[in-house]
């Protein structure tokens, strides 16, 4: 771990440029749709925030989807009650998610290890079940929370007459769909990345790493780990709330399925796929998963049959159903396999994999003609 700012500044600038230029370089890759780009940015925020907790402290939360969901609900309510402007929605999302994280974190952090994971999971499932049942007046149950013509929208109605159709979300008049929506999310992603980087490089971040590394030493060094953990938990919950509110800003509805534990599992996968505890890893993981989800889900048997049309007919009949298992609605199967493969072979994620590859190549260059030293086993 190097301590230096110059390095980080370049890293940050590269990150910002790469994110903002996504419409350009994703075009040849078939990923240049505003909807998809928004998803990249939003889930990037979610994963980066999750990584502040899991990556730095090693506490595996299986309930972060609850904060995502609460962020969405809060944002939609802000649209319904006050204004279609994105800023208050975003603030409500972050605020409510943060408050929920404070409560859940306060209770869950009394335990560590697997108990912590189960507690967070239990709280998230509770939120999910409540959203589906008793809280229906707030969440609109299975249908999901949507905008309606009859919503009060107090602030908006003070200034303009309500128009005939449903109003769209906006940022002081700029409609938050399509590319403007993406750039809004991207700006927040870059901000989120910057904050995460500052946390990683701060004394606070050092404390969190200390908690992951050796809690005993932390205690006997005079540090109270509980408030550090709680702060990290709330911060990452607020990131999730931000991501949730952005989901609602780009598409103003909120459903309870966003809080299900499979959604919590997804953000875990994004983080470990990219690289737990690394700065850019979670973004890479989120991007890859959303990208392949988009690509893979689009396939169906007809498309596949066309793709493999150069093969002999008998082979096509064999290949298409097999490949078909993994694409389209079978995308989750691929996701599960990916999960297993990454955990087994690449516990450090893509970032570590690339690091190793670079080291390996450098070593080879150094030892031209000599023996190549075997690489270290994946760290645990």
């Amino acid at each position, binding site marked *: 771990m190097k301590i230096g700012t110059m390095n980080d500044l370049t890293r940050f600038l590269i990150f910002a440029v790469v994110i903002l230029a996504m419409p350009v370089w994703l075009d040849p890759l078939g990923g240049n749709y505003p909807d998809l780009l928004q998803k990249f940015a939003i889930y990037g925020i979610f994963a980066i925030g999750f990584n502040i907790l899991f990556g730095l402290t090693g506490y595996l939360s*299986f309930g972060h989807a609850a904060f995502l969901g609460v962020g969405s609900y809060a944002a939609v309510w802000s649209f319904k009650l006050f204004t279609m402007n994105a800023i208050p929605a975003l603030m409500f999302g972050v605020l409510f998610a943060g408050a929920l994280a404070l409560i859940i974190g306060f209770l869950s952090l*009394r335990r560590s290890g697997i*108990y912590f994971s189960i507690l967070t999971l239990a709280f998230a499932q509770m939120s999910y079940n409540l959203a589906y049942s008793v809280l229906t007046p707030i969440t609109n149950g299975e249908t999901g929370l949507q905008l309606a013509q009859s919503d009060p929208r107090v602030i908006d109605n003070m200034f303009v007459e309500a128009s005939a159709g449903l109003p769209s979300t906006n940022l002081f008049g700029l409609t938050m769909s399509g590319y403007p929506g993406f750039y809004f999310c991207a700006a927040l992603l870059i901000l989120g990345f910057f904050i995460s980087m500052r946390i990683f490089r701060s004394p606070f971040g050092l404390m969190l790493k200390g908690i992951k590394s050796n809690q005993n030493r932390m205690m006997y060094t005079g540090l109270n780990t509980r408030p550090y953990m709680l702060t990290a938990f709330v911060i990452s919950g607020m990131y999730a709330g931000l991501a949730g509110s952005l989901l609602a800003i780009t598409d103003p509805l909120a459903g309870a399925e966003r809080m299900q534990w499979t959604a919590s*599992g997804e953000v875990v*996968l994004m983080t470990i796929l990219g690289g737990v505890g690394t700065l850019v890893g979670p973004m890479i993981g989120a991007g890859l998963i959303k990208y392949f989800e988009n690509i893979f889900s689009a396939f169906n048997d007809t498309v596949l049959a066309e793709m493999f049309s150069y093969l002999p007919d008998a082979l096509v009949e064999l290949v298409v159903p097999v490949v078909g298992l993994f694409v389209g609605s079978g995308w989750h199967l691929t996701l599960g396999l990916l999960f*297993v493969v990454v955990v087994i072979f690449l516990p450090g994620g893509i970032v570590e994999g690339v690091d190793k590859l670079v080291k390996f190549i450098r070593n080879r260059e150094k030892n031209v003609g000599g023996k190549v030293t075997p690489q270290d086993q994946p760290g645990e």
Partner: protein
Amino acid sequence: MDAVFLQILNGLDKGAAYALIALGLTLVFGTLGIVNFAHGALFMLGAFCAVTFNKMLLISTKILDPTVTLFKAYKEKPYLEIWFPDVGPVLVDYSVPLSILLAIPVMLLIGFILERGLIKHFYSRPHADQILVTFGLAIVIQELIKAVFGANPIPQGAPDILAGSAAVGSWIGLGENVVYPWWRLIYLSFSGIIIFGVFAFLQFTTYGMVVRAGMRDRETVGLLGINIQKRFTIVFSLATAVAGLAGVMYTPILPPDYHMGMDFLVLSFVVVVVGGMGSLGGAVLAGFLLGIVQSFASMTEVKAILPGIDQIIIYLVAVIILLVLPRGLMGRAGVMDD
């Protein structure tokens, strides 16, 4: 009094399923030290063993429908009924209990393959990695089942003779309206036998003795020169089979679908934690207890006072127990304390 008794009965069968899954989870955790998030998927696989068996019995051919005389009509008739007109329909009727015969070898084999192929590489990895890899495995299993059997629940019938309800109330001197479906009664007894069997296996066989010793102190048992690896495989297969059988027998109560594993897993983990990580007795106790608690929470009278309580009661109990009794109801010191 009648109502209370009825709620207890109603809670028992769900509790029995929790207890069986939690028992396997605890066994695997206690001996192998593995946190297995795929255990619910194994329960689901068991249920689909029953579905498969039923489908196998019903492999049909088209025959002329003799009841339609005006024109040639065809209908499907299972080969089984054509070949064995007497026994065939009976076999189909009893397909769920009979599928145990299929489920036992299949589940043991699945357990064996999983342990040898995947789980054994994770003994020394952190719990977080174990959670992640078994979570991935659970998704894989669930999606494969979805791909093969579709997304909709597939109802399985109990044998006709067990279709009605038992007048449990009048047996023990309670009201006439205390009735309990026969199949649930069977499920309860079946669970009792399995739980008893597992405990007897651990208590009275040398194998079981070593497993119990291993749950207390894995290193020492390893040092004694006992082939721990082999026993791990057997324990994992056993736990898989227990989960599978629990799944088979549960099919008439709940039509199996691909995500039932996940639904039960989360609850079963909560059960394990409430019972105390690594305590077999605790897992069984907590399973039944939470089943009953959940059943009481679903009473209309209770819901009138605390709306929605039935949805969250298990989690709520879990949270309270974990915060008050860090080691669960019967957990030992030193297990997962970190």
